[in-house]
């Protein structure tokens, strides 16, 4: 197996108040079966032996589902592969001698904490503002009491597949969170269980999104392209429709 030699230009930033800047590192002899994050592990072990502080980055499941990993690779959130999180990207998609730039998500609502780690708690606050169905434990009717057509269930699932990573925000020139918000809004407004709070939900979530400092959606569609779960921009249209109907009436 031929080893892969790479030059990495990585954003290093000590803390949220530090200015930060790029540092360049060489890594050599990598196996092309490695994942991108395993490549980062190799770099970090190398840094430890050189008495340099390892690069901080978020990750946990390494299976593309927790939404924790978040790197902008050569200018693209989660790198070059369609429908793929950083942790699921493998080195076989890079060539010997490549120079790879690695940066954190950049958005006003996602301040950098350290190196490649950002604060995405604004997403949690959006969900807290109304991204749920109000049902207390123990008060639910039988699961089959409300039949839901298969296609509706499937469509709700497609929206629910969002992993909350924030790539949509990172790639949007306005740093809008519309794809994230609309995915949750649509999942719940497609389902019969979600109807009672439908109006209120979209209003509250949109208001929270705005107050967190996310920008407005101008329909460029970049979010859909970079979303590792390929969530459709159609949900933004659906959300806007719900929102407008509410606010024209009232």
């Amino acid at each position, binding site marked *: 197996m031929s080893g892969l030699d790479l030059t990495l230009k990585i954003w290093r930033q000590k803390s949220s108040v530090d200015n930060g800047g790029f540092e360049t590192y060489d890594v050599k002899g990598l196996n092309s079966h490695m994942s991108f994050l*395993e490549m980062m592990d190799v770099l970090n072990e190398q840094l430890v032996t050189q008495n340099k502080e390892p690069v901080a980055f978020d990750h*946990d499941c*390494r*299976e593309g589902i*927790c939404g924790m990993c978040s790197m902008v690779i050569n200018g693209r959130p989660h790198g070059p592969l369609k429908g793929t999180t950083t942790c699921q990207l493998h080195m076989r998609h890079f060539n010997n001698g490549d120079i790879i730039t690695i940066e954190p998500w950049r958005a006003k609502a996602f301040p950098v*904490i350290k190196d490649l780690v950002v604060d995405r708690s604004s997403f949690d606050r959006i969900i807290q503002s109304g991204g*749920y169905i109000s049902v207390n434990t123990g008060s*639910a009717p039988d699961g089959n009491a409300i039949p839901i057509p298969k296609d509706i269930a499937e469509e709700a699932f497609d929206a629910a597949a969002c992993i*909350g990573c924030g790539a949509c925000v990172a790639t949007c020139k306005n740093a809008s969170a519309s794809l994230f918000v609309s995915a949750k809004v649509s999942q719940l407004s497609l389902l019969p269980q979600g109807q009672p709070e439908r109006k209120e939900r979209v209003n509250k979530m949109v208001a929270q999104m705005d107050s967190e400092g996310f920008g407005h959606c101008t329909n460029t569609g970049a979010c859909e392209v970079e979303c590792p779960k390929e969530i459709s921009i159609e949900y933004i249209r659906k959300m806007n429709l719900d929102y407008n109907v509410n606010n024209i009436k009232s």
Partner: protein
Amino acid sequence: MILDSKIPDGPLESKWTKYKSTVPLVSPANKRKLEIIVVGTGLAGASAASSLAEMGYQVKSFCFQDSPRRAHSIAAQGGINAAKNYQNDGDSVYRLFYDTIKGGDYRSREANVYRLAEVSASIIDQCVAQGVPFAREYGGTLDNRSFGGVQVSRTFYARGQTGQQLLLGAYSALSRQISKGNVKMYNRHEMVDIVKIDGKARGVIVRNLLTGEFNRHFGHAVVLATGGYGNVYYLSTNAMGSNVTAAWKAYKKGAAFSNPCFTQIHPTCIPVSGEYQSKLTLMSESLRNDGRIWVPKKKGDNRSPNEIPEEERDYYLERRYPAFGNLVPRDVASRAAKERCDEGYGVGETGLAVYLDFENAINRLGKDIVSARYGNLFAMYDKITGDDPYSTPMRIFPAVHYTMGGLWVDYDLMTTVPGLYAIGECNFSDHGANRLGASALMQGLADGYFVLPYTIGKYLSQDIRTTPIKTDHEAFVEAENDAKERNKKLLNNNGNRSVESFHRDLGKIVWDYCGMSRNESSLVTAIEDIKQLREKFWKDVKVLGDEKSYNPELDKAGRVADFFELGELMMRDALERNESCGGHFREEYQTKEGEALRDDEEYTFASTWEFKGVNHPPILHKEDLDFKTVHPTQRSYK
């Protein structure tokens, strides 16, 4: 230490109903004054925190990820069991109970398991009401699939992302309580110790991972929902951050730890591809519903799989277990794969893999149906390995997946420390020596939504007069100082080896000696090996960065330090249990055909360990398991 399981009297079927209707209640006015700490926001923790808050308690919730939604439960793929009998195939509470007891190889507690089966149906109702998009039939009703080790279809699923959808449901309930101010959420906080006052759990010390600050939190009760410890093996299907620290600190503060050596090795994972490997990826067990497992009949046959004709393939599970075939339980399937590979029939570069083949299924059902069922798993496999499972069989190998062992709890889910509860994967309660597929999600949500909220009232109803204890109490100060000391020691160690390299070496020892098979002499050696490596760790480990800012290396070092101590306890536990049962296979105890040989006379108990100091052997206590309803027989899947 006295182990009182507090199982209610009366017939098995009415224990829980009677308990619920007679358990003391806490009045709404008093609930508002009672504070509960819930550590962990996986299925168990998020469901418990939200339910307790809905009931009126004041809840504080902690997780080490940047959001509660990212707990390891998010990664569960296959599904969740429930005795709904929607398929009219003969399922019932009793059958789910029976399958779980049998699947656990008769090493779990009847009363707890029965209750689990009993509440399972409500879980599905609750999740549907939250908007969890489960798979549906064309008529709009809920769909089911069957899962390894059972003969009914009782598994509910949401494509291959059931854990994600269930967790997002629980997270939404939690978010609602956070917005109402009933739960105070602490993300990126790690619990580093339990605080005990007058013998009771009264709080925790947590570290803010971003600032390095230590904080003290009081609680009338403390609930641990901190997940499993599979990462002691270094390589496992668990998320990278999964760790034993919270449970381990509890153990060191007097909570007994049961059956640490009962670990589950999942048969269908993507094989290791090199030294750099950081984790292993599970390929859902549901694949065994349609995939067939085989190896070449000829040793060292290195033709490509498609060139090996049908009659030269050994479908060894179908051969050895005609009744269950490819659907035998996990422990049986894993050992059978190991047996073939040990004998030299393994495939792939390392010889440590077997084939999981969909050719028959594609011919029988068509590519579209196979893709509808498993498309996302096939894509994931392709992404990781670069191979296309539609045209060439997958290569799979067993990997560490789940830990049945954990903190000992009684029927109330309370540990041996009064006021300290353990729920979800971090307790030992329901799965005995082996867990059935799709039952961990069920247990986590059962504990959190439907069991703990009742049982905790029994304890708290006696505690309504306790006013919050100030956190300048010496017990808090002492616990915080201990934690600080430990971090200082790690940071000032000036060693020469990375934390990662120590973890990798520890994992190799635990995998080699306490993995798919174990034997006396190697366990004895392993105990010494681990001790030596632990000493080296404390002498040579190098942790860079400082304690006042975000420092993932430091966090990891603390977790690995605890894994060392746990690893040693696992070896002791495995050494002490002179029988083979479930995930614990002792080479000395097997039948002529190589099947596990249980010893019910001597070992029908939960091995429960009491901590006596890092350099002192722990004390073993036995909780005898009394089978009144099910009669243990040899598990046969033939």
